[in-house]
């Protein structure tokens, strides 16, 4: 994913534009086929495998990797880590776009997309975990939109509604954390109903807790990972405050991620012991499970810890990438690799190229919108007209409370 915006405007044939163009073109073709030939025309889904990568990647990974929104805003506004303030806006924007794209992707996956509001507005299946996921994602998407919209108001130079929303920041943040806790965990709880289909190493009564705790690590790591990408490609959009605070954010989040990953590792082992699943470790699935647990949970935890002690920013970046990959691996394992593990190989699922192309399309759309918004709106910098304190002031007195409200 390359985001080169600083190239000269003479040629449109930059590598970035070509790759994006191809992905967008393929995505549009798949979109056309999906809505003219049905799911059978583009996916490898079957009666045995009703959920493919549009659920595994677009929904499960999408939501987990958008967790940076609630973790960052909670760190800044609830836990009082005000020096993370400049990281909040990029994180909120990423989360908002992430959730919006999750909902967009669901329009491709479900059979009758125009009925997606039905569970909330027509007939609610309140005994369903999916109902809880749907309700929370819907409410959280609205919350994220409200949290993001001050940036747009500042861009447009509208003060009044912007100030009203900024004053609600604490309430919005707490509401967001509550909703995130519920639906991040519920995505894991979706699989509680299928103990006979999910491999015992991944099935656990703790699945909701695993999904929630790992989403925190995912959120923190995504903020670090995105920060390095943004620094590379959107550097000219960043003000002195953002750049001054960036190193502190990276170190602080890395420390947090190390602790969360250790906790996640611990409860995974507890889950293993609780169900007495040790015997499965010596099977093929056991080896794969150990790859996930040791290589993508314990290893990044150690890397983070070492990197924080040595203040090694490069190592932090790699630990973040490893953590993000680990979360993706975990969601794929739960929903695809270890799901339907007892079926014969011929009945198992592998995505079609069109499913993969559409997932890439969705991610690409997200990157393009992110780039557009952060180029034109005050995301990495503070709008001079709306500043509530001088940036220098913040550095001299880091504990100084904000005059009024909590965000901008």
């Amino acid at each position: 994913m390359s985001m080169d915006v600083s190239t000269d405007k003479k040629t449109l044939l930059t590598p970035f534009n070509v790759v994006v163009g191809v992905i967008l073109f393929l995505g549009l073709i798949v979109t056309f086929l999906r809505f003219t030939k049905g799911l059978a025309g583009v996916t490898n889904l079957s009666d045995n495998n009703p959920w493919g990568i549009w659920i595994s990647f677009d929904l499960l990974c999408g939501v987990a990797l958008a967790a940076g929104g609630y973790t960052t805003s909670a760190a800044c506004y609830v836990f009082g880590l005000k020096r993370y303030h400049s990281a909040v806006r990029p994180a909120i924007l990423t989360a908002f776009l992430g959730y919006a794209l999750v909902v967009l992707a669901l329009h491709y996956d479900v059979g009758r997309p125009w009925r997606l509001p039905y569970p909330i507005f027509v007939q609610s299946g309140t005994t369903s975990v999916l109902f809880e996921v749907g309700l929370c994602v819907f409410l959280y998407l609205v919350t994220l939109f409200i949290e993001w919209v001050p940036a747009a108001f500042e861009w447009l130079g509208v003060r009044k509604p912007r100030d009203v929303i900024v004053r609600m920041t604490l309430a919005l943040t707490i509401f967001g954390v509550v909703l995130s806790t519920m639906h991040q965990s519920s995505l894991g709880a979706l699989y509680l109903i299928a103990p006979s289909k999910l491999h015992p190493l991944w099935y656990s009564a703790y699945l909701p807790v695993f999904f929630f705790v790992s989403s925190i690590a995912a959120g923190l790591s995504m903020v670090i990972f995105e920060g390095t990408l943004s620094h590379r490609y959107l550097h000219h959009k960043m003000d002195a405050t953002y750049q001054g605070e960036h190193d502190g954010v990276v170190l602080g989040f890395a420390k947090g991620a190390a602790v969360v990953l250790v906790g996640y590792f611990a409860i995974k082992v507890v889950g293993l012991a609780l169900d007495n699943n040790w015997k499965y470790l010596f099977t093929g699935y056991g080896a794969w499970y150990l790859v996930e647990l040791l290589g993508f949970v314990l290893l990044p935890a150690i890397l983070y810890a070492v990197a924080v002690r040595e203040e090694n920013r490069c190592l932090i970046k790699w630990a973040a990438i490893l953590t993000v990959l680990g979360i993706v691996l975990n969601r794929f394992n739960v929903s695809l690799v270890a799901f339907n593990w007892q079926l014969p190989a011929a009945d198992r699922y592998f995505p079609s190229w069109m499913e993969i192309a559409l997932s890439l399309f969705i991610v690409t759309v997200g990157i393009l919108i992110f780039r557009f918004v952060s180029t034109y709106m005050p995301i990495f910098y503070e709008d001079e007209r709306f500043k509530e304190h001088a940036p220098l002031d913040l550095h001299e007195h880091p504990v100084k409370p904000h005059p009024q409200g909590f965000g901008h």
Partner: protein
Amino acid sequence: MQRRTFLGLLGAGGLSAVLGKTARAAGTKHFEGFPGSSGVLFDATRCIGCRRCEAGCNQVNNLPPPPQPFDDLSVLDKKRRTNAGTYTVVNRYDHLAGAPGPVFRKNQCQHCLEPACASACFVNAFTKTPQGGVIWDGSVCVGCRYCMIACPFDIPTFEYDQVLTPRIMKCTMCNPQITQGLLKVPGCVGACPVEALVYGKRTDLINIARARVRDFPNRYLNHIYGEHEMGGTSWLYLSGVPFKDIGMREDLGVTPAPELTSGALAAVPLVAGLWPVLLLGIYAVNKRKDQVADEERKEAVASTLARAKAEAKEALDKVLAKADADTKKAIEKEVKKALEEAAKAAAEEGE
């Protein structure tokens, strides 16, 4: 802002409390099915694999014609499952220990007493009818296919090739036809030539099955599949060979599916209730800490200033005192000098 939080909580927690139904049909007690509800008993020792049940099902449910005609038994060479055009399939299992010839097993919706699909559906599209059949309502279905994930028997199927109106397709135990009076027994049961299928009240069927096991202990395993599996199903099975040998899961347990998720769902209102309290507490503690730090800094500044002032005053006083003393000394000196001069002058005058 408080009101907003409150409204949010209402939305998240309150909505399910207001609109909610309990996940289980009978609270903490084990639900044994609607009284008088019907079921079907399948006897694998009687089934001859003629596929007439498949034909009967196809006919009464107006399903599309099969790829191969129903009297073509070569389709039994492969294991099949239900699909969007087939509510029921018969599979053949060869060379089983303890069976003289092949054993056949009919598969279709088991019509759980507490169905996984119904508990998983986020628009409540599935209903366990008091008559016993589990039916699906196409007017609300979104096509999310979570019912297919949830079903431990892999029964619901989806019309993947339909663009605008894909349906979930599954056996209804002919509930619509029977309640409308079009049929007396399900299509498959009516078509069975060897009474491998018996339709009746589930409680009666369990008695019939027990009687068969008691009367022919060598012919049957002493187990009625579906009596307790997944909390009990309306469809019941008898067999002479282990059920796992004829494609049936023996590791499903006896927990009804809704119980598997009820614990996680019960935690939701707790999170909605406790998280804001906890988070506001953390926020308040941090704010207080900031305030205290701020006050302490102000105090420190004030006391430092006061001390500096006092010191300055002291120094000034000292200087002033010294100046005072110096002045006095100077005056005294001057006076002395003047006096001396005066004395001197007087002396000179006197001379």
